[in-house]
């Protein structure tokens, strides 16, 4: 597999040699190895691999502790546990530590090769989503405003910081489900939302209920269109949106969420400022 660098971590030099030989026979590049946690940290820092095979039992630290230590160097590092033991407790710990896969010793070369190829294909797919989603969601907002109001929002302050959000007054939460799960948040002031609803229905004054319905419908259109655009780029994403939930009130704080990728952007529109936040999570190991 092109450009894939692998490091083998195992306290037994025999196992390191065996696993390295199997990987090389299958066409993978093994760039280094380590027999302990400190060595693993040193090798990962120096060689910057994409994937590490990890023994579960080592003299001073187990495979999970070692995984945590090397993930501090590279949070996106893929780790496959290779161990003679495979029980529920180990699987639970591995899942919690977001281990990408699990292989039992003695290692079957075909099984290991297939697992690595599958993990790397998943990673490429997530990278593709990361490159596409912010543009798709902004384009969906732009299209919606252009179609309804013949006006184009001016985007500003785009960032990928995962932080707490304080609503301007009315916010819509859209759950996203598919190959990767995520969520979209659309937020604006009550005044802006009223102006949008009044403009859409060509009325001067509308009840709160209309404004809430309009916000839900608008967020549904934006998220639905953005997910359709992404699915057209790659049908494997298979993204769908759950129905909208509209939240309004005097104080709304949306917690910082554990998301693997997030984009926030503000936009000036004819009816005031809007705020869009979209994020996704990588799927967890379900082996």
């Amino acid at each position, binding site marked *: 597999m092109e450009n894939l660098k692998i490091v083998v971590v195992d306290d037994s030099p025999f196992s390191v040699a065996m696993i390295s030989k199997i990987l090389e026979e299958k066409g993978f590049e093994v760039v280094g190895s380590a027999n302990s946690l400190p060595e693993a940290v040193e090798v990962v820092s120096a060689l910057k691999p994409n994937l590490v095979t990890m023994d579960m039992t080592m003299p001073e630290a187990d495979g999970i502790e070692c995984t945590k230590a090397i993930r501090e160097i590279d949070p996106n590092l893929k780790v496959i546990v290779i161990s003679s033991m495979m029980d529920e407790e180990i699987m639970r710990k591995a899942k919690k530590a977001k281990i990408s896969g699990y292989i039992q010793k003695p290692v079957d070369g075909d099984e290991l090769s297939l697992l690595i190829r599958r993990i790397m294909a998943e990673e490429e797919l997530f990278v593709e989503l990361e490159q596409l989603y912010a543009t798709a969601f902004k384009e969906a907002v732009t299209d919606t405003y252009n179609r309804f109001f013949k006006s184009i929002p001016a985007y500003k302050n785009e960032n990928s910081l995962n932080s*707490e959000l304080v*609503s301007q007054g009315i*916010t819509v*939460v*859209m*759950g*996203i*489900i*598919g190959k990767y*799960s*995520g*969520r979209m*948040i659309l937020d604006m002031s009550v005044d802006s939302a009223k102006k949008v609803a009044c403009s859409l229905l060509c009325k001067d004054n509308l009840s709160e209920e209309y404004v*809430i319905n309009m916000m*839900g419908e608008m967020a549904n259109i934006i998220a639905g269109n953005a997910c359709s655009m992404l699915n057209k780029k790659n049908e494997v994403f298979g993204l*769908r*949106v*759950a*129905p*909208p*939930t*509209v*939240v*309004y*009130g*005097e*104080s*709304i*704080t*949306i*917690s*910082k*969420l*554990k*998301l693997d990728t997030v984009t926030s952007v503000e936009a000036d529109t004819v009816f005031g400022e809007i705020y869009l936040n979209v*994020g*996704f*999570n990588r799927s967890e190991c379900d082996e």
Partner: protein
Amino acid sequence: MNREIISAFSSAVVNIMPMLGISNIKLVNERKCGKQIESTGVIGIIGIIGELSGNVFFAMDEACGKKIASYMMGGMEVEEFGELAQSAISELSNMLAANASMILSETGKMIDISTPTLINGAFTVSSIFSEVICLEMLVEDMAFNIYLSVKEN
């Protein structure tokens, strides 16, 4: 709403809470309520798609959120409903919805769930469907309500 759906979510609480070390759980009441849900402080929102579509809301006040978060963090004292506690309650929402989806899959209903969104403050949640089922529960004698706003596809 189908009994299986309602019982999947109440069973999820009964299954998950003891794993966190919380054994004092009671289902006090089940009632129909309107689409507007007044927050008592904290609400976790999860989207549902599949053979059911809609949302589920896990609602509690901050004191209950802090108490559950404390259990989830191995008994650590939680003085304010800050980032750690918020993250714990997000995770709890995820665990409860995932467990309910597993129970539903055993009855042949396949659903997928979105990532959770946790909101705190003084606000109202407007659900998409006009009929919502509220499961009023007591967790350590503190109100913990589950609002189900879903329909079968």
